[in-house]
């Protein structure tokens, strides 16, 4: 059994639009070791959610492969995929929209177990549902309530219980705490970290919130307009951000401490350009303070050592081996 649970190789998703192809996910290579958390950060429209959904094959990737435990998810037929889905689950962003308002907590959490027929009778199903509710810290008096009777934090716990009901190995968490207040957000983050320890889960944690991603991730990938611009272990990324976009992103976070009043952060100019038929070369170049002519032609991947990879020719380092993910997965 290899250490790598999930690997993406040259994963692409292009959406056809009247104006041309929208490059939502463009040639992403990544690996996630068993039991670890990979954080995916980026701003709206950078392709983070599309990436998560392509990996679970909730949307069909345009090309590339997704290796889960060494098997290519993109080539599975419906039957194999159905079996595989037990092991890969998703926690959604919006605890208000992702629960069926006409189903009780019991029905919502037990539905995956009914579909997969893993409980022998109703009593077993109920026992297992109560166990799951206990695991995520939901009191059993909620078992027959409907989502509208419950607050956001508890609803998110229902979503987590549902995702865990089939004992998955891998969970994609798509902005699971963004809709919650900070005090509730902290409760849910602690819960997710405890569950990871207890059940040996592997997470892909998608968020736009940099302090949350630093808190929960082992490794972090930064996305910009469908491409991965930097990937590094979390402390390395926060102490030595190499890509100009990562640097700008980090300096833009308002710090809740004294000494930052009326301080101007390094701003990046303009806004994200269109992901439809993007020009070759570095997609950040039009906003980058260091852009040169070379940036419009190529965007080399550099390996800075210690697992730190950056898509910028300014950063030195050795050329990164694009096939690293394939080797690890093989």
């Amino acid at each position, binding site marked *: 059994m290899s250490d790598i649970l999930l690997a993406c190789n040259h994963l692409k998703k292009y959406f056809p639009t009247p104006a041309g192809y929208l490059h939502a996910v463009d040639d992403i290579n990544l690996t996630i070791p068993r039991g670890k958390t990979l954080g995916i950060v980026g*701003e*709206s429209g950078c392709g983070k959610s599309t990436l998560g959904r392509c990996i679970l094959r909730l949307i069909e990737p345009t090309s590339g492969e997704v290796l889960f435990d060494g098997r290519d998810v993109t080539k599975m037929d419906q039957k194999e995929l159905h079996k595989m889905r037990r092991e890969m689950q998703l926690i959604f962003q919006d605890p208000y929209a992702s629960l069926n308002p006409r189903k009780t907590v019991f029905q919502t959490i037990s539905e995956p177990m009914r579909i997969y027929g893993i409980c022998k009778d109703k009593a077993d199903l109920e026992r297992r549902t109560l166990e799951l509710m206990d695991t995520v810290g939901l009191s059993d008096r909620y078992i027959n309530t409907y989502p509208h009777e419950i*607050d956001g*934090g508890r609803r998110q716990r229902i979503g987590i219980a549902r995702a865990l009901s089939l004992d998955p190995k891998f969970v994609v968490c798509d902005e699971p705490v963004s809709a919650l*207040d*900070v*005090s*509730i*957000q*902290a*409760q849910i*983050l*602690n819960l997710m*970290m405890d569950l990871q320890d207890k059940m040996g889960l592997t997470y892909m944690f998608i968020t*736009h919130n*940099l*302090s*949350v991603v*630093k*808190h*929960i991730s082992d490794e972090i990938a930064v996305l910009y307009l469908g491409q991965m611009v930097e990937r590094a272990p979390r*402390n390395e990324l*926060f102490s030595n951000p190499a890509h100009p976009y990562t640097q*700008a*992103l980090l*300096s*833009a*976070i*308002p*710090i*809740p*401490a*004294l000494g*930052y*009043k*009326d*301080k*101007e*952060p390094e*701003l*990046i100019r303009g*806004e994200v350009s269109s992901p439809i038929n993007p020009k070759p070369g570095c997609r950040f170049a039009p906003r980058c303070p260091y852009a040169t002519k070379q940036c419009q032609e190529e965007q080399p991947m550099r390996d800075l050592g210690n697992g730190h990879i950056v898509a910028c020719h300014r950063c030195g380092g050795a050329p990164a081996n694009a096939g690293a993910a394939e080797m690890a997965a093989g």
Partner: protein
Amino acid sequence: MSEKLLEINGLRIEYTSENGPAKAVNGITFSLDRGQSMGLVGETGAGKTTTALSILRLLPKYTAKVTGGEIRFDGRDVMSVSEAEMRAIRGGRAAMIFQDPMTSLDPVITVRDQIAEVLLLHREDLDRANVDAEVGRILEMVGIPAARMHEYPHQFSGGMKQRVMIAIAIACNPELLIADEPTTALDVTIQAQVLSMMRRLKRELHSALLLITHDLGVVASICDIIGIMYAGEIVEFGTLEDIFDPEKKHHPYTVGLFGSIPNLTMDAERLSPIPGLMPDPTDLPAGCSFGPRCPHYDPARCGSTDPVGSAGTPTEIPIARKGQHQIRCVLYADADL
């Protein structure tokens, strides 16, 4: 001209609801000087937006009721001025930036017309022929090329729509600018651009700013004074230094809020969240409303956590004061701060 621009004294606001009156704001008091910027921080349901709306008399007419206290804008009692006078203040001398730029702009009216509307209503000195020039000048101030004034909101990105909202609010050089979560809907790099612009406008226009947010980072980058709100009360108030200095004494809720944010500069293995949930505003506890979630809760001093009966008098929680710093908690006396 008085130094104090906005004074709020013992303000109480209730909404009618199926389960009886929902007590959204429960006796808050603060004042804001000219040119000063204040942050009102709290979580969903703390009563921040209700407070802001009441200053401009924008509360829903039939469901919300001010049940006590007073609001003074430049010495005048906002609650008793006529609707005509209120219209002159609202949008002119005091303006509001709303949270969601996607839904607060009219989608079928050009940006030029939306800004011009404010100018025509409030700037009587302005010649109609000069409206376009003035709209252009205001747009340039918020970093939008004047040439784009004839476009519609959908042609702008989220960050630019928020700039249009800000342009509408500052069109008449308001003395008071109320910003309700102005950057919450924006990405972090765009948030940084908007905050930087707001700091610049504050310097150039000398407006007082009341910033409503749940983000302590945003507050730390722009505010002079801060009120921390919980369940309709200001539980702690002070200067930026009073609130953010970890060496000073703080309300247990303030401590909980800071413990809940993942820290970028330090490595904490676990967050220390506040257990439980905000109380139901129709069913507030009789004593300290934070009592049921507080690690220092003591029924003998903090009052009962049973709900207040409609006739019951809530236990008065003392307020400790030192300079501007105030904490509403039985843990501290004045001398402790």
